[in-house]
């Protein structure tokens, strides 16, 4: 596993940060981001796929009231692919009729898998195959501005996961970045902090340009509970994450 990985630095892999506004469709936006990244990495073609199609064509039919990533991937498999965001744009509300048949597919998937709840293995998969959707407890995000969130089970219950985001990289803070260590008089330097980099769906004005960082190695906010990714056909060439 490399020491750092950041898929935002790879051209054609990450689409712009989206804003779900008042539609609780984080699950669809994370799934779309996962498919875009996998497609971009494996085929070297940049695509932006339709979130609205996942909302209108999902089997539950009420995509703005929450949902599951696996339902999004099932919709893509049922429809043999996804239309582009341009052809089938986000409306911020579920529409009665599925319009999938009217639009050309710009991306499709082979299947989808859930990874083991092991942060080392998740990092390995992220670095060698690409971004992964994860489901976390969003409790600390309402007031989050920047930096690495290092929560405890008390401040962020890892069993109570209620928000889906896209895992796009990992790294370590420089020891100087750490704030004054509490309760240790005079000691101002801190060990460097390992972190995950995650793409949220609350617009680019939130957090670190729409992204945020969580401590890596402590199952922060339940990040290892549902690591799920779509799989796109194997690439001809070996894949490696930009450092």
């Amino acid at each position, binding site marked *: 596993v490399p020491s750092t990985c950041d898929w935002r630095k790879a051209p054609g892999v990450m689409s712009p940060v989206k804003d779900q506004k008042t539609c*609780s469709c984080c699950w669809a936006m994370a799934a779309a981001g996962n498919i875009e990244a996998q497609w971009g990495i494996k085929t070297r073609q940049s695509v932006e796929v339709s979130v609205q199609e996942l909302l209108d064509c999902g089997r*539950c039919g009420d995509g703005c009231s929450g949902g599951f990533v696996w339902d999004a991937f099932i919709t893509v498999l049922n429809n043999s692919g996804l239309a582009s965001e341009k052809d089938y744009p986000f409306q911020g509300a579920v529409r009665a009729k599925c319009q999938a048949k009217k639009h050309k597919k710009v991306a499709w998937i082979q299947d989808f898998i859930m990874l083991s709840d092991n942060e080392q293995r998740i990092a390995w998969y992220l670095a060698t195959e690409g971004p992964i959707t994860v489901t976390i407890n969003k409790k600390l995000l309402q007031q989050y501005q920047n930096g*690495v*969130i290092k929560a405890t089970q008390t401040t962020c219950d890892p069993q109570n996961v209620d928000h889906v985001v896209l895992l796009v990289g990992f790294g370590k803070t420089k020891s100087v970045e750490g704030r004054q260590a509490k309760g240790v008089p005079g000691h101002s330097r801190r060990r460097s902090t390992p*972190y995950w980099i995650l793409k949220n769906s*609350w617009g680019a004005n939130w957090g670190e340009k729409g992204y945020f960082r969580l401590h890596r190695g402590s199952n922060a906010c339940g990040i290892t509970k549902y690591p799920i990714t779509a799989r796109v056909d194997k690439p001809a060439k070996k894949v490696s994450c930009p450092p």
Partner: protein
Amino acid sequence: DSLRVQNPGAGPLELKEVFTLFQIQYNRSYSNPAEYAHRLDIFARNLAHAQRLQEEDLGTAEFGVTAFSDLTEEEFDQLYGNQRAAGRAPNVDREVGSDEWQES
């Protein structure tokens, strides 16, 4: 008074200035004075909460004013939560070696 208690050191005037900046930055307006006062109170609580989060956090995170600072935690949950979050697995534990277990 409650506002003053919640923001030791930041007098109501300062808090109102921060709130006005928040309204400008995130394009917020409230329909009447009562709603304004209600949102100001929530904003003050959220600022105090952000301060506590900052103190409790063991990493390098910074907490403070965000686009959601005039929402209660319940409103934020309602608006941005994945209502259909996966349930918890039932906690089924069974004495290993009990007769019933062997039968089944």
